[in-house]
């Protein structure tokens, strides 16, 4: 029976190819497939693409990744709507549907055969897109420079997967539009319905309203995720759903067509009715439960692990708290692998995973989470992917992106005399935002767990409370005699966000809010920072107090310029219970003091371009500015050119400019440094570890200024790209200020 079906369908397809002559059926698909590759090529020729350095990338893969959404959501959609209507119309117009019934053709061959032809036209469109894309990308790079880290091999396996993904995603829309076109004999109607639905979906898409049951958005979703999902899966849930829903609709349409009417197919007797209702309920239930966003489960341990592909010698990774800057875990990296199991509980937070000073990744995790990070360093570029059981949380960007007018009014200080209305409006917005927290779905239909939802709610409250404080402050300054009558709802919001919430400590805004609240009722004449420290001092002993004091103190220490100031601040560290924090502060304090103005600068040794040994002390008698840099860093190379220009400008003055490389690879440094300006001394640190430690180099580029006696003048100088760099320099050299 199956072989006879295939025989029958083959005969049908042969006939169909005679029939669709001159209908422009495949031409439209091919032209739509060419549309974007051609226009992208033309626009690239007119205005060549500027490639930013990045990790290795395949030029073809990049082209397909960037254009897939336009193809799937626009070209393919139009082709499907047009061709579905056309293929049905060919026979509606001439009574062909009846003619086919008077031929030895099985109805299944007719119905599914035509559908296959439709799919084949979509396939033709995608193939045209792929091959023209390959050709145009290739041609483009014949005449334009290929970026250094570009891979030019044709990624066949990626292309094959992309092809399959798009076909799967188109299945649903094709089935709907085809069924509609067969059932509605009017060409204009089926075409209009299709395009109207497309326009509505485009509007939804534009407004960020995504639902996986919308066949147009299924296509768009595939176009946006042509690389696959977050779980090493190249087929994503919308594509599986498209296959399922499309097939269900196809079978529904077939039964309708075969039985010549809805009633005969589904409703003619009680048996049929019950069968139809149960079938429909089952399909609905399956779809709803499949499309409902899923939450990932807890793991039985708390683990962070991963692998690193890198051309840099990375031996350590640190998981640190984003605001407190406290190291939560110190992880050894060996053979490009790392793994850390937490013994204690870990509050759910946005942590930062730092790989020495090469780069950092944001990681959301908490107790009983297992996080796997794939990290790539190449050509000074950093790329990472977080997997594990917090996929949604790590991909979700919490953003309070709507900007209601009332916030604008408060921020800009407009209409402040209507403060009563303003506070009322703001409260309404806060309450509304809380009610309408957007549903989030990752590529793979994962959503965050309730613990993150709680944090999201608190973030919304926090944002609005900040505006409330801002309003209160501004109104207080403008109308000192007036008092705002705060609505009762504010109290509830304030109660929901306590002033010692450990979980919120990773948000800068929370710290800001705390400071606002603390300083609000303090009328003493002290400096703001001291007021805060004194307020924190009064907090009950515990983790919260430790963390917030540690955070505040370390920032203040790092930002203060004189040793006496730092000594004064350091006194507050005795209020911290945690030995670890206290040690850290002590260590930081000591190191910073070493770099205070007038302290002797660490006299390191280095090699110059002639491979001669040199020391910092060789330059005694001159002012010195040292540029600590590494050749892979893009930021460094930007600053280098400013640095060189300034060196050229002051070449007659008693000042030496040193670019000190702390690279691991000396030969790489030699080739690069040889091309640089001779006005800057190109040195290579013999012991970069020692140098980094003594100058507290935690990030590059860093500029340190040393006086003619070899003492520190500025340990954290502005960058050459900033105007103050030259001002500091001129002041030290006793030169007139620039006009």
């Amino acid at each position, binding site marked *: 029976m199956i072989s006879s079906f295939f025989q029958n369908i083959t005969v049908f397809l042969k006939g169909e190819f005679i029939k669709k002559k001159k209908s422009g059926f495949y031409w439209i698909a091919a032209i739509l497939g060419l549309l974007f590759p051609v226009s992208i090529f033309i626009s690239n020729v007119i205005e060549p693409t500027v490639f930013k350095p990045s990790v290795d990338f395949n030029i073809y893969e990049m082209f397909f990744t960037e254009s897939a959404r336009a193809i799937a959501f626009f070209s393919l959609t139009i082709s499907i709507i047009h061709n579905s209507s056309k293929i049905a119309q060919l026979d509606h117009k001439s009574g062909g549907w009846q003619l086919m*019934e008077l031929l030895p053709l099985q109805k299944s061959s007719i119905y599914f055969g035509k559908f296959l032809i439709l799919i084949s036209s979509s396939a033709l469109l995608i193939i045209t897109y792929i091959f023209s894309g390959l050709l145009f990308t290739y041609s483009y790079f014949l005449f334009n420079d290929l970026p250094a880290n570009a891979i030019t091999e044709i990624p066949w396996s990626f292309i094959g997967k992309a092809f399959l993904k798009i076909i799967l995603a188109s299945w649903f829309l094709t089935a709907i539009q085809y069924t509609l076109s067969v059932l509605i004999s009017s060409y204009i109607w089926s075409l209009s319905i299709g395009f109207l639905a497309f326009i509505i979906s485009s509007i939804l898409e534009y407004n960020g309203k995504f639902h996986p049951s919308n066949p147009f958005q299924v296509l768009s979703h595939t176009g946006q995720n042509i690389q696959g999902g977050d779980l090493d899966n190249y087929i994503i849930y919308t594509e599986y759903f498209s296959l399922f829903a499309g097939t269900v609709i196809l079978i529904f349409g077939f039964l309708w067509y075969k039985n010549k009417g809805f009633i005969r197919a589904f409703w003619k007797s009680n048996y049929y009715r019950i069968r139809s209702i149960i079938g429909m309920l089952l399909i609905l239930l399956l779809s709803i439960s499949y499309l409902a966003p899923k939450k990932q489960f807890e793991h039985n341990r708390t683990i962070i692990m991963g692998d690193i592909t890198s051309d840099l010698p990375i031996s350590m990774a640190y998981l640190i708290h984003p605001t407190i800057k406290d190291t939560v875990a110190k992880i050894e990296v060996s053979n490009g692998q790392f793994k850390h199991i937490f013994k204690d509980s870990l509050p759910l937070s946005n942590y930062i995973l730092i790989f020495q000073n090469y780069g950092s990744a944001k990681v959301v995790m908490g107790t009983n989470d297992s996080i796997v990070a794939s990290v790539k360093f190449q050509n000074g570029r950093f790329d990472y992917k977080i997997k594990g059981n917090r996929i949604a949380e790590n991909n979700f960007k919490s953003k309070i992106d709507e900007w209601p007018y009332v916030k604008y009014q408060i921020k800009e200080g407009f209409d402040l005399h209507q403060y009563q209305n303003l506070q009322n409006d703001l409260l309404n917005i806060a309450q509304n935002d809380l009610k309408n927290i957007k549903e989030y779905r990752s590529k793979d239909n994962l959503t965050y767990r309730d613990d993150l939802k709680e944090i999201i709610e608190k973030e919304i409250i926090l944002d609005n409370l900040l505006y409330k404080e801002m309003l209160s402050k501004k109104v207080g300054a403008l109308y000192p005699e007036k008092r705002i009558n705060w609505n009762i709802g504010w109290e509830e919001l304030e109660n929901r966000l306590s002033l010692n919430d450990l979980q919120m400590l990773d948000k800068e805004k929370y710290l800001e809010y705390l400071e606002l609240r603390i300083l609000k009722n303090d009328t003493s004449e002290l400096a703001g920072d001291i007021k805060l420290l004194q307020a924190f001092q009064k907090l009950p002993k515990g983790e919260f107090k430790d963390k917030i004091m540690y955070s505040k103190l370390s920032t203040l220490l790092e930002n203060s310029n004189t040793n006496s100031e730092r000594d004064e601040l350091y006194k507050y560290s005795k209020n911290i219970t945690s030995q670890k924090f206290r040690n850290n502060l002590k260590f930081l304090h000591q190191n910073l003091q070493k770099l205070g103005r007038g302290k002797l600068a660490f006299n390191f040794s280095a090699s110059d371009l002639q491979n001669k040994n040199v020391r910092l002390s060789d330059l005694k008698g001159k002012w010195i500015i040292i540029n600590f840099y590494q050749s892979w860093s893009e930021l460094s190379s930007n600053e280098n050119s400013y640095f060189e220009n300034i060196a050229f400008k002051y070449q007659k003055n008693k000042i030496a400019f040193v670019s000190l490389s702390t690279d691991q690879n000396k030969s790489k440094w030699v080739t690069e440094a040889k091309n640089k300006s001779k006005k800057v001394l190109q040195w290579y640190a013999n012991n970069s570890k020692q140098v980094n430690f003594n100058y507290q180099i935690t990030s590059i580029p860093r500029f340190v200024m040393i006086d003619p006696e070899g003492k520190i003048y500025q340990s954290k100088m502005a960058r050459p790209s900033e105007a103050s760099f030259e001002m500091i320099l001129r002041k030290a050299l006793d030169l007139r200020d620039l006009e």
Partner: protein
Amino acid sequence: MFSIEITNLNFSYNVKSPILKNLNLQVPKGSIYGFIGHNGAGKSTTMRLIAGLYPDDFKKVKVFDKYISDQLPNIFNRIGALIESPTLYQHLSGEDNLKYIATIRKVDFDKIDDILNTVDLLQAKKKLVKNYSLGMKQRLAIAMAMIHDPELLLLDEPINGLDPTGIIEMRELLLKINQEKGTTIFISSHLLGEIEKTCTHVGIIARGEIKFEGTIKELENTFSTFLIEIETNLNVDTSNWILNNIQSAQILSKQLVAFSIIQKEDIPQLIKKLTEQNIPIYSLKNKRGLEEWFLEITNN
């Protein structure tokens, strides 16, 4: 042996107005069966049921001694059908239309020219069908229906829209394939006169019921009397004379008299009798043939 056999078929789109009432039909193998009735009498519905276009849920229709519903769609390897207006692909040429059918029916493309020759469309084969005349379209549709030498040909109103020569050619064509290939032809029409001459069997349908079914001979035997209408001018005497002397006479008015006679040969004698009595004859009409009877039963 019947090519088509329908027993007690009822059909309706809704319960209130039945289209076919207890319909029985037997089309002998090798016959040319004229299925005659007015528009709306149920011809097309019957045709569609025979062709399986309407579902035969209660298994009342047999084709080649088996229920049609059990044989779809492969039965169409043995049937050729042209139902209602010709279904042709207007954007294709006549030849391409036949190529399409030949492909589906797995018929050699060599046969296309033969069949085009048969329906006299060989010269027009490259022309697009949308430029064909109505008659050409009709002939092409018939060519499409019989390209595979079917055992049974179902033709719904095939001579609709044909000019007189076309009608004659069509009759000849049907006779030819019936005689040469033994094809059973089931042909429907609302005009009895046009197919009477070709048919071996006739079925007459009116308001969903079969009024007559049999061979042409049987039909002629049943309705072999003639009704002669004579236009004249009568007075009391002549009227009385007619009523007294001619048995089958019916005086319809002063100007019109009708006579029933058995055979044509009796007409001259009737005229002779009337002229002898000085009854004027202004005109004479033969009022009753198959056609008249057909109109009578179908018009009621």
